[in-house]
């Protein structure tokens, strides 16, 4: 459903992505793993239209979305939970969630989804009127995921959802991600440094190094791959 074909993305003169191709089928969970600075975040930003690729193409259901404005891409159903959460710090939790549904008009359905994410993460109900910036890291991550869900995404892009969180919360968040995938058949593209966790959750995985995809395989096989283990643990 989402097809990235040989994209090259630059930051100024620095080439961040070199010939990256990724395919994601409907309903799948695909993980992109790699070290810091490998180009994972850039990949997501290229898909979302924030840093459009200079060459190559990105197709959604066969239609090119390369060069389409970021807000139009959201409208097409690709929604990102960016690295570092990026909650609007001076909006309340409720307002943050409403911002997630910015492009939707149907008030009743929005309310319904609001209730849904509150059951998914009950803590958000409690924090409803609090400013986003005052939440703890884990709560912010939950809010960020919920905000993205409010857009009713067809493809959910997650950038390092485990970053800086305690193991228990990571576990909780990964379970929710699985649940979102199962319950609403949302396609998920997960970018992680925490390779083990990500691959356990995903169906398939891509490994990225220095802006290139170096390995593609099913998640189980990648988990067992010696190179992957070496790359991440230096063992």
């Amino acid at each position, binding site marked *: 459903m989402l097809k990235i074909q040989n994209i090259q993305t630059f930051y*100024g003169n*620095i080439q961040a992505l070199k010939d990256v191709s990724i395919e994601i089928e409907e309903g799948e969970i695909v993980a992109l793993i790699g*070290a810091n*600075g490998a180009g994972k975040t850039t990949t997501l930003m290229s898909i979302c239209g924030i840093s459009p690729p200079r060459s190559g193409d990105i197709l959604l259901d066969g239609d090119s979305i390369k060069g389409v404005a970021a807000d139009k891409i959201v409208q097409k159903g690709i929604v990102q939970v960016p690295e570092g959460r990026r909650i609007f710090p001076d909006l309340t939790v409720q307002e943050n969630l409403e911002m997630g549904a910015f492009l939707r008009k149907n008030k009743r359905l929005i309310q319904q989804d609001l209730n849904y994410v509150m059951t998914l993460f009950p803590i958000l109900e409690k924090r409803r009127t609090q400013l986003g910036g005052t939440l703890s*890291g884990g709560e912010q991550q939950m809010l960020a995921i919920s905000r993205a869900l409010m857009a009713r995404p067809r493809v959910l892009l997650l950038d390092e959802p*485990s970053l800086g969180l305690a193991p228990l919360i990571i*576990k909780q968040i990964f379970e929710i991600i699985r649940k979102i995938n199962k319950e609403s058949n949302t396609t998920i593209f997960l970018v992680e440094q925490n390779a*083990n966790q990500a691959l356990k959750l995903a169906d398939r995985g891509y490994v990225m190094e220095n802006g290139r995809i170096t390995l593609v395989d099913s998640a189980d096989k990648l988990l067992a791959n010696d190179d992957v283990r070496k790359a*991440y*643990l230096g063992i």
Partner: protein
Amino acid sequence: MAEKKHKLLEVKGLTMDFGGLRAVDSVTLEVHEGEIAALIGPNGAGKTTFFNCVTGIYKPTKGDILLHPKGLETRRLNGLKPNKVTEMGLARTFQNIRLFPDMTVLENVMIGRHCRTKAGIFRAIIRDKMVRDEEQQIIESSYQLLEKVGLARFANEFSRNLPYGAQRRLEIARAMATDPFLLLLDEPAAGMNPYETSELDQLICKISSEDKIAILLIEHDMKLVMNISNPIYVMEYGKKIAEGSPREIKDNPKVIEAYLGEETDA
């Protein structure tokens, strides 16, 4: 190695709070003469914040940072301005490269010489012999540093036009130009390809052995870390969770857990 080495940097119970968030939680760490020490840990563990405290960019909430230059008296670095810290002999590089993009490669290194040279405004205008000599010396020594990191052929390029890996090495050269006895490298290998990384590996060892500069580095590339550094300190959630030789670190279940999630089957 049995002989007790001179302790250069001593950090005791360093704590840094941002609002309600404790980014660094009573971390204790030491760097001795001739060492290449490494500080590792998952993203967001507080490593860079630790660097920023030591180099004076942040003022730590609690704890002591003591510098013991050889043959000089001990200095407490807490609350000193970053330029004073650098003057004291402690230089650093940045995680997200911070070169001076509109200056040439050579000029970037020449900036590093600033705190070791003297010419003021009036002398610069008059440009007497001493100033000219000093200037020439800055050029020569900067050029030598560029040769050392393998960037001499780029000397007159704008630094923004350098490839990524070369920019990282330029940052190291620039930091070395301040004549440090201790060098703090923040993710020097980030964004480098394996070939560049192995070159960097050699460069760091060379700096350590030839220039007698002790090194403390933050790094994600485990291969690099395990190859060249000893001791290794591991941070997670702002706390130091382990320290020791590469072998000890590899076998430490806490470390494996920190890197892989809660699994301990590695």
